[in-house]
Structures are given as C-alpha cells and as structure tokens.
C-alpha cells in the first residue's frame, strides 16, 4: 500500500453546531494526495478551501471524518512538525532578524545553535537571500518577505508544505516570479505541496492537480489533472496546454457554481 502524504476521508466541518451561528463549511470531503504532488485547492471565496487546509494542518479538527498526514493522525503530524505552513501575510517576527525567523521552528524543535545556523544558511541560499540574513524583516520587500516565510516553512525539511494564498498580497509581476521560485524551491527540497488560491492561472501553472470546490458548503466537484511536465518556466505560460487547462478549470468552477444553483432550486 502506498502511503499518501495526505489522506482525507469523509471530512466535514460545521462551525458553531447547534447555535444560531451554525455554518456548514465543508461537506464530506474525500481527497488523497500522493507524495511529491503539487495540489491546488481552488474555489469561490468562502468555499472552505482555507478551512480544508487548516484541517490538514490540524489547526482545526473536523466535525466528522478523519485526516491522515504521512500515515498518522493530523494531530500527531503537527506535533512532529511534519509540515511547514505559509500564509497570505508572511507572519515574520519584526523583532527577529531574517535568520532568526527562519530558525524559529528549529528552536522549537530543540536544535542546538550550530545546527540551526547551518540550516538557516542553507535555507537562505535556497531562497537566494543569503546577503539579507542579518536584516530585519521590515527592511525587505513583500516578495522577499514571502520568500523568507517559505524558507522558514521548509527549514526543518518537512515532507509537506501547506500554503494559504501566499502570493495573494503581491503584485502580478512579483507573483509570477514567486511562482517560478516556489517550483524551483520545492523541486530542490522534494516537497509535497497543498496550495490554496483563487487564481486560476496560478493554480494551473503550479499544480499537477487542481482541486475544484463548490460554494458553501464546500465540496470537491472536480479534480483537473494538469500535465504540463515537471519543468515549467515562463514559456509554459504561453503554452497551448496551459490555456486549455485554464479553460478546463474555469468551466469546472462554473459548473460547481451552477451545480450549487441547481441544488438550491432542488431544495425549494
């Protein structure tokens, strides 16, 4: 039996169950992610894609179903730091140097100083910001900050990287650059990635699987396989397959919303 990086089985998430504010965010999610995959979660805002990511991260516990990460419970995977996480805000600590920010997860794992220094140097090199190690985060541009956040997420060499719209706050040019950088970094670090986005081109460019979700309550309506090959560069963005896949995801998204309308009519 091959071990999945992530295995989600019938997971549902209801916030404030039984009260006036009850909100069904996710309904009956089944999703397996193989090691080495780059999977994007895409859907209209409020469809629960960030919630799904937080179930994998064990920042939230599902109200039904179960989530396995690396073959163990999501809770255990969190304790073992089996994943790194990056958010829309870089979430760097202003009072720490860039280097010390990258070393934070290693400190919490109890690594000694020398080992931490070696690893942070390695990570700085990986994100090509070696000369900024002693700077403060606020001295860096938004794109650089996000690269540091990725370096921090990967510092302990976790097999899984969870990203919640990490490039959402960046301008288009920086964003495209960061996407290429991310692919390079993840290929170098051999990491499985789950990536939440609401940009169709971003999802298609980065992923080998795009998971399409419906509006609330979030359900997986479609999974689009993207076979653009492993090496993707700026030419990929002009590739005919790239456009075809964008159209396919867009139609899947539209279908998801239409399905929602039909359901509502049925409910009546």
């Amino acid at each position, binding site marked *: 039996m091959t071990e999945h990086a992530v295995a989600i089985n019938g997971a549902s998430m209801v916030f404030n169950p039984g009260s006036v504010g009850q909100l069904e965010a996710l309904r009956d999610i089944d999703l397996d992610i193989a090691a080495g995959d780059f999977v994007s979660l895409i859907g209209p805002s409020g469809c629960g894609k960030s919630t799904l990511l937080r179930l994998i991260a064990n*920042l939230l516990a599902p109200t039904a179903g179960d989530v396995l990460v690396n073959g163990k419970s999501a809770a255990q995977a969190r304790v073992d*730091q089996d994943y790194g996480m990056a958010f829309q805000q870089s*979430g760097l600590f202003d009072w720490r140097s860039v280097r010390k920010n990258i070393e934070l997860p290693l400190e919490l794992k109890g690594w000694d100083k020398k080992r931490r220094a070696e690893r942070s140097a390695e990570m700085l090199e990986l994100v090509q910001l070696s000369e900024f190690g002693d700077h403060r985060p606020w*001295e860096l541009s938004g794109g650089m900050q996000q690269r540091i956040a990725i370096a921090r997420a990967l510092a302990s060499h976790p097999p899984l990287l969870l990203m919640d719209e990490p490039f959402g706050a960046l301008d288009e040019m920086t964003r495209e650059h960061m996407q290429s950088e991310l692919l390079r970094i993840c290929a170098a670090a051999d990491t499985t990635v789950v990536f939440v986005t609401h940009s169709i081109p971003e999802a298609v460019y980065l992923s080998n699987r795009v998971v399409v979700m419906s509006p609330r309550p979030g359900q997986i309506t479609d999974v689009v396989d993207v076979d653009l090959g492993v090496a993707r560069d700026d030419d990929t963005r002009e590739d005919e397959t790239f456009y075809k896949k964008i159209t396919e995801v867009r139609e899947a998204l539209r279908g998801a919303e239409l399905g929602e309308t039909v359901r509502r009519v049925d409910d009546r």
Partner: protein
Amino acid sequence: MRRARSLLAIWPPIVFGLVFLIVWETIVAVYDIKKFLLPAPTAIASAFAGNLENVWEAVLVTGANALVGFVLGVLLGIAVSFVLMRFSVLNELTTPLAVAINAVPIVIIVPVLNNMYPAGSQVPRRVMVVLIVFFVVLVNVAKGLRQVSGTHMELMRSYAASQREILVKTRIPNAIPYLFTAMKIAAPLSVITAFVAEYFGGTQTGLGSAITSNASTSKNDVMWAYVLGACLLGLSFYVASIWLEKATTRQHGRNPVMTR
C-alpha cells in the same frame, strides 16, 4: 552633511528662544511692568542663581517622587498585566475597577491619602504617581500581550508550541514596544502628577509647594526660579521619554498604536 543638518535643525529654536527672552526683557523694561506681575528674565535668572541650592533641593524632592512612582508604577503595571493575561476572569473583574480608579481625579485622591500618612511623608504623592503610571502601563502591556497577530498564533500552533513558548517567543516580544510606548506617555505624566500632588497639602519641600508658598508671599522672582526648575525637571523626563521612543523604533521599526 548629517551634522550640518542637525545644526540647521537646532538653530531656529535657539534663535527664537533668545529673541523671545529679549522681547520679554524689553517689554518689562519699557512698560515698567511691576515685579509681582511679571519679572524680567534677568531678574528670574539672578533669583535662580541666588536660590540655586534651594531650587535644586526642591527639584530632587519632586524628581524623586516622580521617579520612584514611575519605576514602581511600571513594575506593578507589568506584573498585573501578566496576571490578567493568565486569568481572563480577573481581567473582567479588575478592568472596571482600574477604570474607576483612573477616573477619580488626582485632586480628590491626594488629600485622602495625605490623611492616611504622617505629616512629613512623601508616600501619598508617590502613591499617586504609581497609580497614574500603573494604569497607562497596565492597559498598554496587557494589550501587547493579548493582541498577537492571527498569523503568528496559527504559526506557533502549527509548530505545536506550548503556552509557555508562545508567551516567551511571541507574546512578550510583541508587548515590548507597547511597554516602551506606555513609558513614553507615563514619563511626563509622572512629573506632572508629582508636581500637582504637592498643591494639596503635605510637606512643603518640593517644587509645587515652593511655588505656592513663594507666590503667597509675593516673592515672584523666586517663584519663577522654581518654575524654571520645574521646567528643567519636566524637560529631563521628556528627553528620557524621547530616548525611550527611539530605542523602540530601533528595535521594531515601528511603534504600536498607543492607548491611554
């Protein structure tokens, strides 16, 4: 280049100050303004020089009240904000109390405190300063400990960090700029409080008492000498607070929004 710029920044206020003093001196001389209305700067300066020792002693008394009250107030504020962070129930109980204490004007509390202590005691004034400083520090530091960004909290939880690790690596560093901001606000307040508290009885050794007693005996130039002393004391606390602000900015690149 930098030195030239700072010289440029320093000259205008100095020139303005000198011109102001000269105009003041001239007006007093030309219109023959009586000493009890407004003494000339030169008269104040000579009274200041003549009473230097007395003024200095009064500055020490008031300054010590402000400083002791400031330090104790800061320490107490930090301690209580940690307790409040740990026990949120206490927070709900004590916040209205703290607000109520802070709402009682200093004019009312000082005479009450004076009654509780022996006549020669400086304690009531120091208690007053402690109360004022304590409140500013408590509100700000408690906010800094509590208002950690959502991303930081999620990040720490994703590392399965313990409450203690979250406190040491996130909450406390997050609260430090808030503490500096609080101290910056509280430093001038502590002088003003120490000063005003002397107007409501108690021993007559501080600046405030000296100013009232000299005013009542129409020794106006001497009174103004004490006012000058008060200005210098206030200025030294102000400079200290500016320095505190600079220290924060250097560390964090920003200042948190302040709360009073």
